[in-house]
């Protein structure tokens, strides 16, 4: 966390020095923070959804007769897992555009 904060500060400082414009510096820092927020937020759900779907496919291959139920449960799991990435995306929008 402190490393992240340091990076954001550094980017902000560098941007500020480069442009010598306070608003532009803040925007640049927000943009880089936004990218980082979304990038980090995508890691966990990416792994999670991959694992989830893999396991669901395995379950369906082992028991094709329960494929419908597994599919419904799979979509629910994807929905819950994906929410984290989407919150990251919203944070990205908030940081980048607001």
């Amino acid at each position, binding site marked *: 966390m402190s490393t992240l904060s340091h990076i954001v500060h550094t980017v902000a400082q560098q941007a500020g020095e480069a442009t010598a414009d306070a*608003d532009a510096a*803040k925007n640049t820092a927000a943009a880089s*923070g936004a990218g980082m927020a979304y990038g980090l937020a995508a890691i966990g759900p990416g792994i999670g959804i991959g694992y989830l779907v893999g396991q669901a496919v395995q379950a369906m291959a082992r028991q094709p007769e329960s494929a419908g139920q597994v599919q419904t449960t799979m979509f629910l799991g994807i929905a819950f897992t994906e929410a984290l990435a989407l919150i990251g995306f919203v944070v990205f929008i908030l940081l980048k555009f607001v």
Partner: protein
Amino acid sequence: MLATLSALTAAAAETKETVNPVLPTTNEIIYGGIFFVLLLIFMWAVCLPPIKKAMRQRDEQVQADLEAAERARAEAEQVRRDYDATLAEARSDAARIIEEARQAAEARRAELIGAAESEIAAQRQAALAELDAQRAAALGDLTAEVAGIATAAASQVVQRELDAVSQRPVVDDYVNQAIAAR
């Protein structure tokens, strides 16, 4: 970090004074709400009931048709079984009738044959009897003739009238011996 980010965000928001793309706007909330509630009311009261009714009705009809088809199949099966049974009965009847007829014909034939045979036997018996009678008659005649001739011949031989009647037993005896020897 969060503090930094929020501070930056707040600063950015202050400086740019733009609308937030994440927050809803009042007019869209109002129209969205109005139209969704309208959709819900229409679905509830107007649109869905006839569709559901038709679907249920069709399900019931399909079910009824299936049952009717099943019944018709069972009936056809029953009719077929009856028909088969009747056919088998008719076949066995026919076989029985043919057998009876055959037996009757057999009996009749045997009877006819027996009658014919007995008639033939009777006729033959009669013919034989007649034959015997005729033969006996002929034999008698012949014997009488032979006796006459023999008596005449003997009369010629002995030069004396022989009585045919008194010599008759001799002749008969001889004839009988001849017949026996033959």
